[in-house]
């Protein structure tokens, strides 16, 4: 039967015929992660009652917000079967450059009302610029994304630290303008500003992926690059652009992180790389390309953050958080491999 409301979307969502057994349908469902989250949450309530408190919810939400923005950038790259290891370096780099533009000594900007917009524009430009460079090497010079973004992440993480030593005696740049800090901390209509930003980014990327030529062609490139080329998709241009978008996402994430911290720091986000990739993959985005959705990644982030919070509440130490996170990524990967097996290749 046709479903009149079926998504007219160029994505390879899972089809789940009705005659599969329940466990298979669950395994194949795109909401598997949400179900797991809920189940986990319910199990946790008797163990750590505090998990069901407003405070915890707020913590979960605030941890999720910047991560979602960054992970969405990664999702776009994974959809075209690439990988972007440089996002954390972009976060660090944009953070310190943006902070120095807003607080720079001697210039006209500090204290002026233009400091905030100039800072934000600089951050976006730096993010887009590094992304452009990644994309150029990958799409035009046909270098492997893994190595290119590995090199750029080493390079710019180094540059960020070095840059701060030039500008400041401490290891970070403080005294950011109030108008900037508000983005990471303030509220509008009772809703945190960072939530507004994240919502806007999420909706924009969702619309871009599902309703624009660019987005749908990204999926096609991920499913079959050659076929896309033969069908007239400008593959190099699209791949190049995808990395620019990823860089911009990292920059937006950096704006939120920096605003929240009230300082530009080169170690901001330095160890969230695996969370970024993990969240996307746990949500159901495939490392082999062609599969991924905004909402899946949001679920993936929710899952990771929920896990993190609950482990913290249980008073577990860092090492348990580490080990359990690894196990969860592994389970997600095995589930994905099983999924491919069940649906046949």
């Amino acid at each position, binding site marked *: 039967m046709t479903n009149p409301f079926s998504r007219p979307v160029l994505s390879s969502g899972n089809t789940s015929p009705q005659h599969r057994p329940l466990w298979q349908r669950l395994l194949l469902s795109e909401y598997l992660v949400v179900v797991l989250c809920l189940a986990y949450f319910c199990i946790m309530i008797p163990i750590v009652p505090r998990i069901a408190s407003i405070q915890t919810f707020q913590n979960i939400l605030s941890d999720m917000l910047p991560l979602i923005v960054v992970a969405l950038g990664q999702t776009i790259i994974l959809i075209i079967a690439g990988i972007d290891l440089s996002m954390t370096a972009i976060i660090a780099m944009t953070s310190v450059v943006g902070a120095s533009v807003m607080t720079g000594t001697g210039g006209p900007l500090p204290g002026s009302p233009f400091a905030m917009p100039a800072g934000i524009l600089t951050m976006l430009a730096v993010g887009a610029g590094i992304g452009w460079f990644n994309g150029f090497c990958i799409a035009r010079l046909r270098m492997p994304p893994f190595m290119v973004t590995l090199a750029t992440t080493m390079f710019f993480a180094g540059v960020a630290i070095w840059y701060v030593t030039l500008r400041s005696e401490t290891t970070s740049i403080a005294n950011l303008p109030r108008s900037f800090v508000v983005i990471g901390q303030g509220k509008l209509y009772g809703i945190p500003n960072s939530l507004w930003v994240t919502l806007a980014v999420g909706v924009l990327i969702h619309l871009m992926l599902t309703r624009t030529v660019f987005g749908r062609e990204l999926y096609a490139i991920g499913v079959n690059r050659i076929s896309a080329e033969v069908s007239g998709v400008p593959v190099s241009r699209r791949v190049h652009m995808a990395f620019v978008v990823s860089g911009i996402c990292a920059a937006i994430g950096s704006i939120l992180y920096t605003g929240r911290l009230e300082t530009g720091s080169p170690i901001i986000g330095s160890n969230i790389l695996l969370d970024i990739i*993990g969240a996307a993959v746990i949500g159901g985005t495939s490392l082999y390309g062609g599969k991924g959705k905004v909402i899946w990644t949001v679920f993936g982030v929710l899952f990771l953050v929920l896990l993190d919070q609950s482990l913290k509440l249980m008073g577990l130490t860092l090492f348990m958080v580490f080990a359990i996170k690894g196990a969860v990524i592994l389970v997600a990967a095995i589930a*994905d491999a099983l999924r491919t097996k069940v649906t046949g290749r």
Partner: protein
Amino acid sequence: MSSISRKRFLMFTLRYVPMLLFAIVLLSFSLMSPRFFDLKNMINIVIQSSHIGILGIGMTFVLLTAGIDLSVGAIMYLACAMLAVYLTGLPIWLAMVVMCTIGMAFGAVNGLLITRLNVAAFIATLATLFIGRGLALFVTGTQLLTLPPPILELGRSNILGVSWTIWAFAIVLAVSWFILARTPFGRQVYAVGADPESAAKAGINVRRVVFFVYVICGFSAAIAALVSGSQVGSISPNFAIQKEFAAIAAAVLGGTSLFGGRGGVLGTVFGAILIQTVENGLVIINADPYIYPMVTASIIFIAVMVDSLRTNFLERIDQRVIRMEDLPR
């Protein structure tokens, strides 16, 4: 004909760019500081690069099959953590055996995940990286621990006037070179990396080959842990963090392709030494320590770029030919 010789020349240049790079690095540091080009310093460079070199040798096996192992740093940490906490009472040789066993077991888990459960190597080893580090943090209680005295003695020991580190490096290199070049298994690693489907058709047990490649990688990570541990003498929670990237960089720098089938351990050693030479040189000329990672990253980047150019170029040559144009003979 001239276009063919031009192609040959281009290939030749592309092939030796890393060597050229090395020569330039040596030359420029020698000019900048007389202390650099000195036998003692050269030996020092080899010693400093040995753990990355050994790690990179194991990684080379994995990369040759077009795989990747992100968990080697975690294996190093876990092996040393076990040594520092549980194996203090054991005689040194037994402790070494246990460490190597741990490394191989860890590699075997990776191998099983990849060959039996069909998990992508990247994600499987990413997960075991977390698990391994988590276990190690658990074992050490996130403390900075000193390694048992015999290990420290090992680090200082000499055999025939040569540091044990260099011996270990040389032996690992010789054995791994022998395995890759002179045993059926080694040649099958190359075949699997070139084309797993053809390899299966040719009757090679592809799963077995891939599995053992990860075991070998785990083993070499354990040796690297010993070498590194005996030099540092203690392990902090950051021990061997992100060494996987250094190992991959060394291998790729030495001409091993990320897409499998091409490269070798000699190149990897060369890559590791090149990276260490740069860092050593930067120290000697008193460069701003903050620019170290930038210089290293740039060198890796250049090497990868050259490799891609070469691959693109080879692809163009390999195009299918329909008709034989009459070539002057």
